[in-house]
């Protein structure tokens, strides 16, 4: 059985996830990019409450590979943004963003 469910769902703000949700299932958000817009990518504990949460949020379930690709696209944009910084600002911002691997 899979440990996580992957999906996209627009974070609508207050009440989108509650403290009880956080107690009921693993939930971690990532910024992804679909080629046009930033999208909210979620890694959700694969239990009944987690699956129900994604469905209730009108989420779109993704494979792990699809979720990773969305996150990779956002990281690429961040790397491009870092490359465009001045040398002074690069010193402040730290090293170039590296890949993020979804669990």
């Amino acid at each position, binding site marked *: 059985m899979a440990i996580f469910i992957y999906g996209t769902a627009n974070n609508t703000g*207050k009440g989108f996830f*509650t403290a009880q949700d956080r107690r009921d299932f693993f939930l971690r958000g990532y*910024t992804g990019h679909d080629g046009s817009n930033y999208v909210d990518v979620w890694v959700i504990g694969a239990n009944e409450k987690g699956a129900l949460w994604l469905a209730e949020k009108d989420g779109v379930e993704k494979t792990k590979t699809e979720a990773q690709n969305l996150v990779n696209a956002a990281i690429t944009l961040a790397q491009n943004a870092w490359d465009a910084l001045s040398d002074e600002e690069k010193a402040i911002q730290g090293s170039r963003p*590296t890949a993020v691997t979804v669990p």
Partner: protein
Amino acid sequence: MTDYKTIHGKKVKFLSSDPPAAVGEGQVWYNGTDYKTAIGSEAWASGGNLNEGRFGHASAQAGTQTAALCATGTEGPPWPGIVTSVEEYDGSSWTEQSNVNAGRESMAGCGTQTAGLIFGGSPDSDDTEEYDGTNWTDGGDMNTGRYHVGGAGTQTAGLVFGGYTGTAKTGVTEEYNGSSWANSPGSLNTPRFSITGCGTQTAALGSAGNINPPSTVVTNTEEYDGSSWTTGGSMNTARQDMGAAGIQTNAIVFAGRIQPGSTLSNATEAYDGTSWSTKPNVSTARSQGAGAGTAAAGLLFGGGAPGPSTATEEFTAGAIEKTITDS
């Protein structure tokens, strides 16, 4: 068979109605139907989204989870991507207010939603502005212009420390009296930028940050008493550009970036005046978000995740009731 009385020396108390969870924390009672208890609980939950995503913005650090202020910042790239907008939070949604006079990013803020102060940042690195809940007016300039600074205090008793001057990191500390900044005799023992501050002008906390060169994040904590900085407990995870809430002896810090790699962090840690402990993670890791509130009712909003985020998260520590079952 061992029973409750054998273990605890007394019977379970009968209560005709359940007490508030905070009162019942650690207790066991029977309400005529169920055996109940209350346990401590801490978690982050989503709050209302900002109208304009941003990072490197300022918070009125002494604001609350239901009365917070978000000012200026950046939505770059393209750089500098400065946004001048200001938003107020009421515990459920953000509402746009009057813009700041001079947009900037990577500054610090202090005070409250109706008496806020922002200072430092790029490009106007010595600039100060005061907010009265409606309008922004210019305050006295800082003596040492800088950005990626730490801040604490109130509009009439503000504190700035650390930062990057454009050529080097600094540990210089200045105090604001409502009209002008004066250099403190105390300076950070470990000069750094992207340090996170909270507390007051006479009891401030400065946490973590970057000591570039070389680009290295640290766990160092320092405590300010109004005249000098002393070393505090070391954090568990070295980071820069975190958010913070609370006071010197009861604070939480959250999110930020780990170097090398600028890896975004979702970690939360709490400080009790002596040592740091791990708390539940924020949902979405981010850097240069801003914080407000207390260690028991904190707020994180915006940040680079890595794009400019509108997301708000609310941290609540309290007690919740549980029904005791045998399954």
